[in-house]
């Protein structure tokens, strides 16, 4: 144990906690009983198939469901039990701490997953599509790392915004994680990605079947999730970092997604470029909203941020800057790149189906639409900060969700006959000035009040 303690004390601690001799015996014992039970109820010739499905669901339950809970508890327990400051003052280092949390807190789950995975791989050759199943087996392992990483990241995010001394329950994160998994699997089902057919997708001219693609995505995003955990852990241990990894993630997403949109045999395509930037813009906007609603936004943090900016202390600025603030320039970069790329073309054919569904018929309308989106984003973020800088800020994020629902759904449907749609969402029906102007005016008004509020509290 001394060797492990020396290599990674955090892993050693979890080995003490998680791997008692009883538990080590219990896991294979229970799995053996389940296999025996499944074999007894399986029909002749179905044995391997039954074992295969049992091991698959074993990985899902032990690795995903239970493992995700343990991964988020790895952080939340430290906060709740008031041991996190010991860790923050320790000499373990962000990388070892990341690995300790990721694989230490879930070591018993990994033990169970490993046993199920061996069964899964051994039974794969006896299924209908052995090669696809073996690829799925590897995909599951990388996806597991990614999901555990997402839980740790979410727990760190949640813990930062909860006042110290408040007990944090992992239910919210766990349910969020499960919801995310359900949405993801629903999307996969919608696009028939779980069917074992020979659909092939071209990525930079390389033909991939979707199992290989899933494996590729699981490896790539699993690695990025681990990288995200590492950077978050660095922030917790008060290392000062520039947002270079966030920028790298942005570039990676561009490169990764561009490969799918690129027509076969080509290395450059203007339409693919426009589409990729557009997808990236929407992804970054989604991230801005998600992070803005989930990250800490107290006045003190913004005081530090503005003070660092004024003094040109950029290290300090980036240390205090929430990720949603850092994501805004990247969203703008992707948005303006998409718009510029669209403007140099003769028509809207690069985004024809999207333009049609949004009733955008010209490049001028597309540009106005883009500025309308920026106006609404500016307005929404302004309202969010106003709520957080107000005296009643306890449930500011929940209130903001209500405001968003009212602004984007309730008010537009109530005022349908008044034709006030451009006030509430980008709408081309009242001409270009209304399309871009009204949201920008709204944003300016909200930011005027925000500036006044800030003047009082700063």
């Amino acid at each position, binding site marked *: 144990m001394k060797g492990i*303690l*020396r290599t990674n*004390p*955090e892993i*050693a*601690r979890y080995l*003490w*906690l998680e791997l008692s001799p009883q538990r080590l015996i219990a896991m294979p014992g229970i799995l053996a009983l389940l296999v025996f039970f499944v074999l007894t109820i399986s029909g002749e010739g179905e044995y391997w198939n039954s074992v295969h499905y049992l091991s698959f669901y074993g990985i899902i339950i032990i690795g995903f469901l239970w493992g995700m809970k343990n991964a988020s508890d790895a952080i939340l327990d430290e906060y709740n*039990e*008031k*041991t996190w*400051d*010991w*860790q*923050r*003052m*320790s*000499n*373990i280092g962000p990388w070892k701490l990341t690995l300790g949390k990721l694989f230490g807190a879930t070591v018993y789950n990994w033990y169970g997953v490993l046993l199920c995975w061996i069964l899964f791989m051994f039974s794969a050759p006896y299924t209908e599509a052995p090669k696809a199943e073996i690829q799925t087996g590897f995909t599951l392992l990388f996806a597991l790392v990614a999901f555990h990483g997402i839980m740790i990241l979410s727990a760190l995010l949640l813990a930062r915004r909860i006042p110290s*001394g408040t007990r944090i329950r992992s239910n919210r994160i766990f349910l969020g994680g499960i919801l995310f998994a359900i949405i993801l699997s629903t999307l996969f089902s919608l696009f028939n990605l779980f069917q074992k057919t020979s659909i092939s997708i071209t990525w930079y001219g390389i033909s991939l079947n979707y199992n290989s693609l899933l494996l590729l995505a699981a490896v790539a995003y699993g690695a990025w999730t681990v990288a995200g955990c590492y950077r978050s852990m660095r922030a917790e*241990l*008060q*290392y*000062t970092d520039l947002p270079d990894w966030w920028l790298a993630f942005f570039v990676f997403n561009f490169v990764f997604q561009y490969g799918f949109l690129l027509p076969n045999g080509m290395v450059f395509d203007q339409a693919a470029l426009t589409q990729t930037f557009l997808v990236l813009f929407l992804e970054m906007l989604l991230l801005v909203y998600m992070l803005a609603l989930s990250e800490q936004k*107290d*006045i*003190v943090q913004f*005081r*530090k941020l503005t*003070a660092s900016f004024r003094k040109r202390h950029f*290290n*300090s600025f980036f240390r205090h800057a929430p990720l949603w603030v850092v994501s805004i320039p990247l969203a703008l970069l992707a948005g303006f790149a998409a718009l510029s790329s669209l403007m140099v073309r003769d028509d809207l054919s690069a985004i024809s189906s999207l333009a049609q569904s949004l009733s955008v018929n010209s490049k001028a309308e597309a540009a106005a639409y883009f500025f309308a989106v920026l106006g609404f984003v500016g307005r929404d973020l302004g309202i969010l900060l106003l709520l957080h800088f107000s005296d009643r*800020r306890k449930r500011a994020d929940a209130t903001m969700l209500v405001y968003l629902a009212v602004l984007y759904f309730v008010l537009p449907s109530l005022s349908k006959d008044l034709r006030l749609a451009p006030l509430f969402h980008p709408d081309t029906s009242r001409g270009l000035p209304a399309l871009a102007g009204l949201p920008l005016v709204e944003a300016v008004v909200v930011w005027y009040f925000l500036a006044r509020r800030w003047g009082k509290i700063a």
Partner: protein
Amino acid sequence: MGAPMISVKDLDFDYPDKRALIDVCFFIEKGTITALVGPNGSGKTTLLRSLAALASPIRGEILINGFDTASQPQEVHSQVGFLQDLFGLYDALTVQQCLQFMAYSRIHGNHDPGPALEKAIGSTGVSSFLDKPIGTLSRGMRQRVGIAAAIIHNPAVLLLDEPASGLDPEARYELSRLMVQLGGEGMTIIVSSHILAELADYSSHMLVLQDGHVVEHRKIAGTSSFRPEVWMDMVVAESPGPDFPSRLRAIPGILELEEKEGRFQVKLDLNTTSKATFLRESVLAGIAVAEFAEVRTNLQDEYIKSVARFKQTRTP
């Protein structure tokens, strides 16, 4: 005097609803034990967390042994041991496992944590319950494990936030002894506590906080940095005569002599003498000693006076 072990300049600390520390400035010398006193909400815990580089102030500079808490927090962490008021320990681990984990996680990889671990166990007297799970320990035992964890990397600075709260008298006495011992080893200690009488037993300095302001920071009258020196109060039965100071100074072990309203206070070097030896030598030198007692500072009174003075200065 060399560079102070702790230097705090122009410190402001904000919470969303209030400013917890306002323009705080002070310096603390190496090897001193400072009693950090003040009412609830005065900013003691915030100050300790800032000194431990766990909370970042909005303005100001904190240097711990020359390291800046804002730009070198990791270096500060290696210099500081911090036991918080409501600290947690890994309840499912045994004391041995917990301290082993703390030792390996706080001491740099190239060094063997074994000796430091043994020393921390020895200093805090936890060796008798090393195999007990932490979750089963009494408050006093738990506190000792917490202190062992805080000093396991032999920090230059030890910060203790209400370490005596909830302890029984015996455990408090043990804690006082430990403070004296650690102070004697050269550790710079800041202890926040509400139990002022006990702080007086081992503190050399007092830092008073009130409403986020430093009201007073000074050496406690009659005390020295730690116990190798002690101030004694002496009353003589007869008129001492003009040669009395020189007679007294001739006795081995005396460091300083002060006269206050007919009473004499002598500072003894306990490394070269003891109270009993000094008393015997005084009697043998013909001094009619009527009273001879250690000077005990009433920290409570001094604290009340400090706060009253501060309130007076703030009254328009």
